[in-house]
């Protein structure tokens, strides 16, 4: 079809209207393969909506979204996922009545080619089972293998949330506030984990904690009122006059204070 794009993910003039109010107003973003991007912005800037548009939860009202050069806007979430994009949720979104192991295994099945098979036993899918065990070890959930997802502690549930997201081996990963609600020490450990499991992948995160942003991201995208007003390295974004004026001057300080407060 089209030749390989130089961008892993591309947003071209993406707009989203809910009724009369336009939440995303012509967002532009071009992310290169392997980049780690943190999306920041004040509350109500449309960060989560942007994630919902990219991952197919909602279809954009207009504009284009391209994954490895191919349009994905308007596709169903599972179609987008099969093309190599996976997302996590702000509130842990697990298979609550299945064990930790089964949660991970479910997330592996499609990508490992087992689809809707009802003529094969799960126990015989050695590739899937081995991979699931490996992932559990990586997530430090191997001791909790057979616990139902609904009985996990908050931090464990967050780790499983990330695990389900990355299990399928998608090349583009969206993480919606992965460390929300965690303590300082948990957060630190968790960033380490995210770095480890998203090695070599294109990563987009929505994050409020500036410590996480600067610890995890190569680039920062600043979203204000549904527009990306800056997209650059952390240092350049800090120095950006427009960001200073619109956002960093007041809100960043406020957020830093809030971050320090919740920690």
């Amino acid at each position: 079809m089209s030749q390989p794009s130089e961008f892993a993910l591309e947003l071209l003039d993406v707009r989203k209207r809910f009724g009369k109010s336009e939440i995303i107003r012509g967002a532009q973003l071009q992310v290169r393969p392997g980049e780690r991007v943190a999306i920041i912005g004040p509350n109500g800037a449309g960060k989560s909506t942007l994630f919902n548009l990219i991952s197919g939860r909602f279809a954009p009202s207009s504009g284009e979204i391209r994954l490895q050069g191919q349009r994905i806007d308007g596709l169903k979430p599972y179609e987008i996922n099969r093309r190599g994009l996976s997302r996590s949720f702000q509130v842990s979104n697990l298979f609550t009545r299945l064990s930790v192991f089964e949660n991970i295994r479910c997330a592996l099945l499609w990508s490992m080619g087992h689809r809707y098979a009802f003529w094969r036993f799960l126990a015989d899918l050695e590739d899937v089972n081995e991979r699931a065990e490996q992932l559990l070890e990586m997530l430090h959930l191997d001791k909790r293998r057979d616990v139902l997802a609904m009985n996990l502690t908050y931090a464990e549930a967050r780790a499983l949330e990330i695990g389900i997201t990355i299990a399928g081996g998608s090349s583009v990963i969206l993480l919606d506030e992965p460390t929300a609600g965690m303590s300082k020490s948990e957060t630190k450990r968790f960033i380490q984990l995210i770095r480890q499991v998203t090695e070599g992948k294109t990563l987009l995160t929505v994050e409020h904690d500036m410590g996480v942003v600067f610890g995890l991201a190569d680039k920062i995208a600043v979203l204000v009122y549904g527009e990306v007003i800056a997209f650059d390295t952390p240092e350049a974004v800090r120095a950006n006059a427009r960001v200073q004026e619109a956002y960093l001057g007041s809100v960043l300080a406020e957020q830093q204070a809030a971050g320090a407060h919740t920690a």
Partner: protein
Amino acid sequence: MSRSLSTPHYHFKPYNVGRWLVWGLFALVLGVSPLIWTSSLSQTMLSQMGIGIIACLAYNVLLGQGGMLSFGHAVYSGLGSFLAIHTLNQVSAGQLSLPVSLVPLVGGLAGLFFAALFGYVSTKKAGTPFAMITLGLGELIWSMSLMLPEFFGGEGGISTNRVVGPPVMGISFGPQIQVYYLIAIYCFVCTAALFALTRTPLGRMLNAVRDNPERVEFIGYDTQWVRYLAFMISGFFAGVAGGLGAINFEIVTAEVVGAARSGAYLLFTFLGGATFFFGPIIGAVLMVLAGVLLSELTKAWLLYLGLIFLFMVMYAPGGFAALIMMNLRVAAFGKLRQLWTAYLGLAGAGLGMLVGGSAMIEMVYHLQLNEALGPQLVFMGATLNAHGVDAWLGAGLLLLVSLGLFELTRREFKRQWDQTQEEIEKEIKRREAL
């Protein structure tokens, strides 16, 4: 990444003794039951139980495993019955050549076909809209049964003779016992197949769709397809049950597609326990016991059934299967002894409620239905005067007192139960730490 090198643990499959034992026992029970209960009534009931087990297990693919509340599953078993009985009639008319033992498969294919047809519509939705569509489709087929008497046989239904042609190896399917063993074989195979389904990728994703359909869409699966495939599989097995029903009863009337039948599948699958694979088996056994024995015992059996259902929904939403499994867990930790006094209390109070309540129900039914026979009725060996104040007062008092006692013992039981669970949790933690 080289997987073979990176995994230090090697595989060997232990011979799963427990599983062989359970399935062996199941086969044994199916095989030996008609030799223990030899009366024709019990053989009829055992045959019905076998059919019910297949139907309830098929239904539970939707309810327990897929989280789909269907109000119209009799459509698939029922249409399976009709297609099977028409096929049987064709065979006996010499227009078709098919062994009787394979006629249930015709029912299964019919169930599959109609599930594919109607399920395409209903499984586009989940939750309440799904339930509503199945209800609508159930009503639709029911009304069709009145409009198409050629196919549904009108009020008299369609009858057949299952003895077709000369016996093969001495089997003519004339005697009930031969039909029972046909049903038992189908029951075993279908149960095994449906259990196997729960161990496959599709079966597991069906659980995932039940738990969290939204997330399923984000790990590459189309939830509609998962539901649709499960619906068709469920329809197939329901149809097999229907086909066996046609052979067993040699008559199929429109009520097999009716809402009452659909409701019975739902009610007894729930009572048996939708959260465990074997729950619907208990449910099916209860379904036949209630339908044949309880209905023989009292005219008010549907009322009792309703009360039991209400009671279970409130106090044991996991059904009998969950009750059994929870108590087995307590027993495995050697703590059942702590609870037996509370159980005794619950049973005593429950019995009081039952006697008081049912005395009043029976008196009402007696006055309504058997007025001509006078006010006297025999209840549990005692003669009650349905016009007498003392009978009403006594029954009412017994009901109220035991209701109060039940609530008290229930609270005490709950306290003890929670404490036991806590102790078990602690014990598990301790063992993990070792």
